[in-house]
């Protein structure tokens, strides 16, 4: 990703160009459809979240039943909202912290930049899932907010790296120098001059981070570290029903396919945005 970006006056045309891009539109459509499903499907579920509809791993109902005899279709319909909310909040947290760190490092420069980015490199030495697992060791039954913070915190150093790279190309541009010469406060320069010019690359990064958030949150559920053991959750359903893969494949395949579709959608959307941003440079 190159360092420069669309200027603020070009921001509307950035979105117009994005809307014309096939890949972005396809990704956006898939993402929005999955989100709508996650939000509204619980109202149409044929059974309750923990309602027993038949014997375990039986063919009762459209997609059969799971390890406890709960209706798989209903569980899939209930199970998206938790992942969606946690992933989106973790992404927002990671973006806010990462962008703040990256922009401050780029804008201040000098030794502060050096120290921040060195520490950042250390955090990058942790694969994201490892950071979450290490902290979970000392926690008993993680609360949803704990998972949000863990996933968000594991994103932050990666976002900071990208944000710093983008901001470095902006802080030396004439309009920032002009604002400094006018005696504007530093916080105002960052908020009013630097950040608006980073919209394109940052949106692309946010899309990518959302993809990884969904993967991570689902992975933690798959590993059995979900916050609410009884609740329906696509990631956790994989963990619960793993032994039933041979006898009642839909109990595992249905949530797996939902996670797959969701991440494909968000990733295509992110890449479409990145492409539009890159073209905007030239």
């Amino acid at each position: 990703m190159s360092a420069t970006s669309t200027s603020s006056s070009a921001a509307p045309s950035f979105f117009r160009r994005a809307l014309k891009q096939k890949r972005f539109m396809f990704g956006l459509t898939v993402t929005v459809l999955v989100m709508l499903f996650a939000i509204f499907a619980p109202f149409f579920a044929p059974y309750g979240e923990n309602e027993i509809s038949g014997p375990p791993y039986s063919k009762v109902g459209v997609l059969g039943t799971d390890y406890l005899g709960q209706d798989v279709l209903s569980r899939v319909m209930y199970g998206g909202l938790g992942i969606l909310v946690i992933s989106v909040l973790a992404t927002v947290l990671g973006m806010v912290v990462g962008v703040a760190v990256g922009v401050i490092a780029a804008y201040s420069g000098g030794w502060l930049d050096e120290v921040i980015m060195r520490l950042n490199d250390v955090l990058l030495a942790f694969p994201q899932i490892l950071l979450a697992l290490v902290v979970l060791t000392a926690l008993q039954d993680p609360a949803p907010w704990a998972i949000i913070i863990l996933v968000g915190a594991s994103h932050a150093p990666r976002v900071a790296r990208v944000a710093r790279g983008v901001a470095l190309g902006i802080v030396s541009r004439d309009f920032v120098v002009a604002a400094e010469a006018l005696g504007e406060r530093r916080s105002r320069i960052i908020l009013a001059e630097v950040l608006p010019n980073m919209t394109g690359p940052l949106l692309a990064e946010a899309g990518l981070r959302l993809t990884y958030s969904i993967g991570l949150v689902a992975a933690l559920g798959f590993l059995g570290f979900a916050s609410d053991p009884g609740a329906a959750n696509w990631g956790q359903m994989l963990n619960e029903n793993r032994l039933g893969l041979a006898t009642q494949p839909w109990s595992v395949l249905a949530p797996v396919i939902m996670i797959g579709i969701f991440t494909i959608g968000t990733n295509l959307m992110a890449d479409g945005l990145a492409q539009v941003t890159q073209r905007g440079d030239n």
Partner: protein
Amino acid sequence: MTQVATLQDPFEEVAPPRGRSGGAAWAVWLSRRIGLAVLSLWLVSVLVFLATVALGDPVRAILGRDYNSNPGRVAQLEAQLNADQGIVSRYFSWLGGLLTGDPGTSLANQQPVWGQISANVVNTLVLVFLSAIVMIPLAFGIAMISAHYRRRRPDTVIQTVLLALAGVPEFVIGILLVATFSTTVFHIFPAVTIATPTGHPWDTPKGMVLPVLTLVIAVTPYVSRIVRATLLEVLDSDYVELARLKGIPEPVVMRKHALLNAIVPAIQVIGLQLAWLAGGVVLVETLFAYPGVGRQLVDSVRNHDVPMVQALAMIIAAFYIVVNLVADILSILMTPRARTAISG
């Protein structure tokens, strides 16, 4: 391209020293780079220790509901974790043990940590190594086919498929592979690796196929996309155009001009992806019950086995740092521009 954004520039790390003889400049660069790696590793150890000990109460997490009813066990565990000492002295005695090859005793079974881990480290390295051997030629092959048909239909299709795969979590790919090849559609490969306590998982090669395949599918898209991007950059450049005008056939252009130039970016992204595998194995090993560090880590986190988690996390982070170090050294060695910048 989004992946490019996470690629580090190996030359950004150190400003090339000037006015020294080649060998001395090399030694300076190398020792600085290794020094950075050691510094990172030390900071990682601080982080691992604080995260496992200071953020929560491991004893409370281990005992759960028994915490209040069983004060004897609480005292015993706290004694084993040296909970009465200050956190700083605990950190240094742990670090000392780590450096002398004694990372402590497992809380789950009271056995020394290292004895339980060593075999798993080898198993995981074999898994990662096999995946890399399959992945590298595959990624290059796909990238070359894609670059050959650049911006035409086959290229677009390949790129869209790779992009779609790149976003999908590895365990999703793994489960779909299991459903396809071992339980639901076909019954060709076993769904789990079988390892006897004395044997190795690769004693039954069939059981290795799906874990390796999952990891390969998870990392190939990234490598392939970066290699293709570099190939295209070269194929569109003026000097390649000149080579074509001189009548050099396209396969030779691809091999001699494009491919050689793609090696250094490829080393960087392969390094990053191998390092990523250190985390990726956690899920894949758990899914296939593969006896490696990843699955052991998950089990230990579940048991709140603090000494085990600390040791395993350090091993994984060390692997990550070493792979990045090697990738940086290799890229410098293979870039004439950077080589002369350092020794010139």
